[in-house]
């Protein structure tokens, strides 16, 4: 339990809690970014360099942007003045508390967990690439297929049903509309990043 680990963990957890509890959705998204960045830092702590950077690239660079766009597209970026909690939220809190209790309890009293840290393994990008191309090649292909399907599906779902308005209103329009036009593009980019990164 190095102090660095403690600090990072605490920051991450607080950011996550904030992401789940703030009123303004954009603040939530930003603090989610902080939490994810913290997780990436944790991965680096655990000598998983590639995964850490991939985490930043994907989550900070794309998922966060995606969420932010979704927030703007659903017109919910203003601080809501009605209740932010769904009815029956107490039960939810209770359930999640129970889940945490069971998980933590299991983590603490499960015997046979290795006590000390083994030497850092050789986890260079080259090894990862070799493994991806040899042993995990089938999952890789499947993932590629999945991403393609998700890309097409996302585009189809989010496509506007009615034809976009033509004329000057198309050039200088309300942000949401412009975003809706560029919206599928985001998903695309995000998928291609995965392809390029791995």
């Amino acid at each position, binding site marked *: 339990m190095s102090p660095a680990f403690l600090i990072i963990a605490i920051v991450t957890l607080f950011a996550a809690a904030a992401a789940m509890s703030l009123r303004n959705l954009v603040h939530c998204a930003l603090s989610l970014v902080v939490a994810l960045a913290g997780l990436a830092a944790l991965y680096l702590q655990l000598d998983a360099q590639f995964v850490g*950077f*991939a985490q930043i690239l994907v989550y*900070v*660079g794309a998922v966060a942007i995606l969420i*932010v766009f979704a927030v703007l597209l659903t017109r919910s970026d203003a601080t809501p003045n009605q209740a932010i909690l769904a009815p029956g939220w107490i039960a939810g809190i209770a359930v999640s508390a129970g889940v945490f209790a069971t998980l933590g309890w299991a983590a603490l009293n499960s015997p046979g967990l290795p006590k000390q840290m083994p030497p850092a393994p050789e986890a260079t990008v080259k090894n990862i690439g070799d493994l991806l191309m040899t042993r995990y090649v089938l999952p890789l292909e499947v993932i590629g297929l999945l991403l393609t399907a998700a890309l097409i599906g996302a585009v189809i779902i989010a496509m506007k049903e009615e034809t976009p308005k033509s*004329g000057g209103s198309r050039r200088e329009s309300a942000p949401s509309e412009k975003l809706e036009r560029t919206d599928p593009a985001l998903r695309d980019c995000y998928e*291609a990043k995965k392809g390029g990164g791995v």
Partner: protein
Amino acid sequence: MFEALDQIFVTLKHQAVVFFPDAWQPLVSALISIAFIPLVFATLFAFVTVFERKGIGRIQNRYGPNRVGIPLTKIRLCGFGQFIPDGIKSLTKEDIVPRAADQAVHFLAPVVLLIPVLLAYAVLPMGRNMTAVDLDAGVLFFFAVGGAVELSVFMAGWSSHNKYSLLGAMRAIAQMISYEIPLILSAVTVIMIVGSLKTVDIVAAQNHYSFGLAHWFVFTPWGLAGFILFFIASLAESNRSPFDLPEAESEIVAGYYTEYSGFKFALFFLGEYLGMFAINGLGITLFLGGWTAPFSFLTWVPSYLWFFAKLMALVFTFIWIRATLPRLRMDQLMNFAWKFMLPLSLVNIVAAGVWHFLGAGWLRWVVCSALIFGSYAILGWGLMRNQKLGKRIYRFAD
């Protein structure tokens, strides 16, 4: 003697480090090399601002700044002292924050912009043995931290509660994300060929000569195509013209930093330019052989000079383009990214693979060139035929 000149900064750093106790030495060396980056590039930024103004003035056949030299003296330096009053002005101006703005985010935005940009320099090899941190996944790291820029742009645009800011931010994000794909995909070709994400390895792979000419990747078909794609994409990534829609003065006042002034604005400005330098540095590392000399008989010139020479050349090209090309329209921008550059970069990856597996010989040159130019011709023909990038249509308010 030339080796000494080449390694002078490295040796100086060692001299400085040895004064510290051994436990601290790695930390100190890292700190030193990190501390130098902002210093060097901030001065470069200061110089380039003036350089750009003068260059554009030259191209537009007018005087750039040509008065200010060293203060309190008569030395003019043809106006290259201009950045000093500019800096003073921007540091002393009042810092205005709109009442409706989201204070915290509005304050954080420039910081969030600047930090990743500075981080990105950590993996750039600016000379022989002059890489701050030689990460195993260096290029990935570069792109990862580059991704944070979009976030800061969004923060700036959203937090200042100004529709122009929001428009600019959205434009910028859409544009950056769209052009990040050709950027990364064209970099992937190099990574494929070199077989490593380490920037140092990439430079080393280009650091040998035949017939006196360096083996830069830009001298291969796929490398040339990749470099051109990378260059265009980097133009868009750093929001330079003709891709400067995010801060299109004539359309949206100043884009996402409409509501920024004074020091924060200066930070944004700095961030923009540093980002431009960084991405050009990456382009140099990937395609233009990093700090290596183009010709074997020029290897005696110190490596960092080569790096900065190439950097300045690219920056000048940026300025030149800015002074030359008109601004695109949003749909043209998107079409260009998704329908032209993305397919071409994918084809380019295939071409690189072909290059790799055909082995040495004249055949791979033919095949690669045929592949790239054929796809280029087909794409261009198809897009031009149905007028996707056709000439501007004037619409009137209705």
